[in-house]
């Protein structure tokens, strides 16, 4: 492999610059975070994590994120299916719209949902300051992940496998269960992992929807309130916990995906 950079010197310089940039922007701040969280020793770390508010926030965060991930797996796969296999006027526009939650600032997402499902709701549904509202906001921001993960795989899927199954007597449901789904599973898992990681950290869309009530306060809001009240080490402890959970999930799913691709061409 020929490096376009002048010989070894250039490559080493490049590596140095990249490492410096990453360290300055990402790694050192994270290190500072971890340091602060364990500043008072593990005892204080544990105390911060087990305060009633922190616990209820974490519980809500995890439960809501799991629910949202499951809904996304089903709805996301269905939507990807319709976008790839079906055809109807406006499908192209719909396909572009899927990415809107990704492009929209999260606080605007919150306002958008409140416009329809908030206190002035024209359809009489008001989820402001409720846990349902939290789930709704998370569904909004995590929409693209499973859809975009499944779409390309579905597009590339060998249609002849389905025809072969049909010629062997398999009905559409059997074909879906035994042929299509197993081939989509790695992509679904990857999308689900990203959706989960996003959901547990979501902040902007929840800031307006959940008010400041303990029963609708997720961990990210808890962290924010702790910072505002000066308890930065407590905030840091919960932050590190969230970070570790996200990393563990991403790693696990990465392994699972790798394993389920073991027979790939």
């Amino acid at each position, binding site marked *: 492999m020929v490096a376009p950079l002048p010989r070894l010197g250039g*490559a080493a310089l490049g590596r140095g610059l990249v490492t410096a940039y990453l360290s300055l922007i990402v*790694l050192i701040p994270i290190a500072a975070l971890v340091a602060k969280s364990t500043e008072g020793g593990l005892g204080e770390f544990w105390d911060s994590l087990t305060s009633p508010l922190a616990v209820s926030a974490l519980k809500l965060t995890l439960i809501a994120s799991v629910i949202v991930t499951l809904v996304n797996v089903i709805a996301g796969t269905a939507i990807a*299916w319709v976008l790839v296999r079906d055809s109807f006027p406006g499908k192209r526009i719909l396909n572009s719209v899927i990415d809107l939650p990704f492009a929209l600032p999260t606080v605007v997402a919150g306002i958008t949902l409140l416009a329809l499902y908030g206190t002035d709701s024209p359809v009489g549904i008001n989820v402001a300051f409720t846990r349902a509202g939290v789930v709704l906001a998370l569904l909004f921001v995590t929409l693209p992940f499973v859809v975009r993960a499944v779409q390309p795989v579905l597009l590339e899927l060998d249609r002849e496998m389905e025809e072969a199954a049909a010629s062997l007597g398999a009905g559409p449901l059997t074909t879906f269960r035994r042929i299509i789904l197993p081939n989509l599973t790695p992509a679904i898992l990857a999308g689900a992992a990203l959706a989960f990681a996003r959901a547990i950290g979501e902040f902007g869309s929840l800031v*307006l929807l959940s008010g400041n009530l303990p029963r609708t306060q997720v961990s990210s809001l808890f962290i924010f309130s702790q910072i505002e009240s000066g308890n930065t080490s407590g905030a840091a402890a919960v932050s590190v916990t969230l970070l570790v959970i996200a990393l563990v999930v*991403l790693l696990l799913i990465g392994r699972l995906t790798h394993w389920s691709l073991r027979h790939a061409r």
Partner: protein
Amino acid sequence: MPASRTASRLGLRFFALGYLSMLLLIPVGMIFYRAFEHGAGAAWDAVTTPEALHAFYLTILIAAIAVSANTIFGVGCALLVVRTKFRGKALLNAAIDLPFAISPVVIGLSLYLLYGREGWFGGWLLDNGFQILFSLPGMVLATIFVSLPFVVREVVPVLHEIGDEQEQAAHTLGANWWQTFWRITLPAIRWGVAYGVVLATARALGEFGAVAIVSGRVTGETETAPLWVWREFGQFNLTGAYSASLVLAMLAIGTLLAMNAFRRKEAA
């Protein structure tokens, strides 16, 4: 085709369209409605106040700086990862993907800790007159953090795909590394870069949580557009909030269109 097949196809279509309408399409439509509820004039006035204009200006400025930095980093890093050998690539990739796994408030907190009075860098910087927190540099750093992965992630596969044969040919013809990069590599990866830039820009424009913490949210000084929207909504200036949201939504839609256009060019 058997009737049951058509029924299930229509059923699935109905479900998908219904879900998307209820969750996405109708709520976004409501923004348009609410913004103009009191007339286009009121909407215009609300988003053209000095504070609002400053907020938009700040948002765009920060995004421009952050995305530029990440583009240079992204292309350079991609070249490094794809075209050179070194140990620790897995670690590098993990570090690059880190922003995807971290909540924006956690990012904000980590910067707050690092550059605060008590922080590792904060003390020295403040003593020497460098204000990072509650000022532009901090907000830029936060935005760079959150939008870091996008350009790298889009350029890496493109570099893999085009292979280095063209670059080798250029070398045999006497081109040095800059000429090769500028005339051969960059043109070949331009759509990957464009797509990555659009994604990074979308993320940077929309950043909220991290900037909320590091900026101190001083109106007219360190308030970006999303933060301004938050304030307006909190103070019940709904027309202002909705109108600004509309502007941001239109920016987002513009980003979507760019994404679409570049995605197709990238695939071609």
